[in-house]
């Protein structure tokens, strides 16, 4: 569903990512793990077309995303950091607006129901709790019924209950056969959700495997593995 090969991006003399390659199958959750500045977000931004890579190939559901970005985007739903909505828009209005940008959107009411937002459907965005806002972000990513989900630290800043709620939603999505690419700093979350993870350091992937095998190979927890592989 997602194939990335030899992806690179430089900012001046600094290589933010350098030769990143991985592939994600349908029904798989793939985690990109690594310290801040390792190149996780740059990788996601290249895949989403927010940053133009200097080189490499990106394929989404068989579509060359660099050559046909708009068609590729129609297959992707994304939750990014530092995205928000207008204070006075309601979840229903936001979903209807984002549905208008999609060719075959899902029904607003069914999405509100599915993500537990029906009660807040007509409340202003600035009156929602942090967890509700994050759930709305996830709901918005689903409007176009995407085959691929890209989630950049989707549970950061949430309380344990909300974090668990979002994780359950992600697992439910996996069950529906979609491919999910996520980044997280929460290694428990990565171990719980991800089928495979790639450890990224200084713009390069230094290891790719299941969390269990990585821990077995390198010893300790997933945190220990990351620290060891990234020389921290």
């Amino acid at each position, binding site marked *: 569903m997602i194939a990335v090969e030899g992806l690179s991006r430089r900012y001046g003399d600094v290589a933010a990512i350098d030769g990143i390659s991985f592939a994600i199958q349908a029904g798989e959750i793939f985690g990109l793990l690594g310290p801040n500045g390792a190149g996780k977000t740059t990788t996601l931004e290249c895949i*989403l*077309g*927010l940053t133009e890579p200097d080189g490499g190939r990106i394929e989404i559901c068989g579509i060359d995303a660099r050559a046909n970005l*708009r*068609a590729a*985007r*129609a297959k*992707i739903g*994304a939750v*990014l950091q*530092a*995205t*928000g*909505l*207008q204070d*006075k*828009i309601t979840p229903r*209005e936001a979903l*209807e*607006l*984002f549905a*208008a*940008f*999609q*060719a075959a959107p899902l029904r607003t009411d069914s999405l509100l129901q599915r993500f537990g937002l029906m009660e807040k459907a007509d409340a202003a965005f600035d009156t929602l709790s942090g967890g509700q806002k994050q759930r709305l972000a996830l709901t*918005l990513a689903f409007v*176009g019924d995407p085959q691929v989900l890209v989630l950049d630290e989707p549970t950061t800043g949430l309380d344990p209950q909300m974090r668990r709620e979002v994780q359950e939603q992600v697992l439910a999505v996996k069950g529906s056969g979609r491919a999910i690419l996520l980044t997280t700093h929460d290694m428990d979350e990565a171990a719980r959700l991800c089928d495979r993870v790639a450890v990224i350091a200084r713009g390069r992937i230094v290891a790719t495997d299941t969390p269990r095998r990585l821990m077995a190979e390198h010893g300790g927890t997933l945190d220990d593995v990351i620290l060891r592989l990234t020389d921290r």
Partner: protein
Amino acid sequence: MNALPHLLAVSLKLNFRNRMAILYGYLFPLIFLVAFWAVYRNDPVPLALHVGQFLTVTILGSACFGLPTTIVSERERGVWRRYALMPVGRWVFVAGTLLARAVLLLTAAALQLALAFAFGLPLPAHPIDLFVAFAAASAAFLAFGMVIAMLVDNVPAVQALGQCIFLPMLMIGGVAIRLESLPAWAQHLSAFFPGRYAVEAMQRSATGTGSAAFDLLALLLIAVAGAIAATAMFRWDKSVQPRRGWLLLALGVWLAVGAMAELRGPVTIGHAQDTGAVGAPKDYVAASKLAAPSWQVVSEADIDSIAFDRLPPDEGIISPVSRSDEEPDPILLSQLDRIRDTLPVWGPGNVADPVQRARNLLTIAAVPDILQMEQVERFAPRLVFARLQAVIPPHDLPKILYWIAMHPDDGDDAAVHQLGVFTLPDISGPSKPVRGRVMLYALKLLGRLSGHIVAH
């Protein structure tokens, strides 16, 4: 997929939920309109000569603050970053935002015009031309508003940069303060600000005077340059640095348009003068001795002693007089006709004492001048001069004019309060300034009669 109409509808809905946006978008233009009405309350036709000005203020407010504030605040909170992930072209989001702004602007202008009509503004002479001029001015300023939005990172910076554009345009760009009231250097400077062309294009459509072709061309060039620059500087995310070099294109066209205007012909209107004291009779006498003992014995030598070259110019704002080949705005014709028709039956203009009669008649020229009643102050003196020549024997008139000029504080000035029949307002406060203007107009007619002033 119906992205554009949906985005337009949501943008409008959100705008109407924002109290500050309503305040800026609708209340602010109405407050400006009332201010114009209050400042120019003595105009013969309320607001008719200021349509271009108050509509330009509304467009400027929307372009310098409303549009960029919306875009920058949405970009700051990551709304545009989210839009960037959608499988539609960026033009949809830009067009939706601009269209919403255009709708808000059009409704604000309609509201402003409705209130202006309630104040007595007549219907525009060429409504379609006015709409075209309004659209061109909106395009020019909204394109620049987009440039501001792409340039700055946060809302306080929009306010700061917006004020840097808005205030100079208002003060010395011919938008809030009439060009005629500005010194020559400021009038030259105003040619490099687009506000001047917006005001002129809309005013010409409203009052039906002159061609707005150059103004429309200027606005179109500014709009195209702004749109190109804003497109090149576009960014979804504030973390991306804008390509600031394109700002030079947007501002370069302002300079090019100003240069074109300067090359095309004079950009100054009249000579700006101090509206303060007009001086005493002795300031206009070349010889040392003042006046004869009575008006009957005024001699040619006395008249020759006047330094007519010291009088304010006819095209200035103190004691102006229109040229003989100059046509007034059509909206003024009815008032000028009324003055002409009423002069023969006006009591103070027919009193027995010829000196007082002349003094009273000159008041009709002096009062509109004091009140700076735009064109009335320039055309009324010609009617008064004609009437004076009709009711005072040609042999006496120069002597009487000389006498009045040399004795501005003599005689009765009750006529100042009897101008209502000409639809001229009463003036309150000391009548000394009126007497000063009576003196100047007496000298201007005297100069014409004696051949010292060759009027065009």
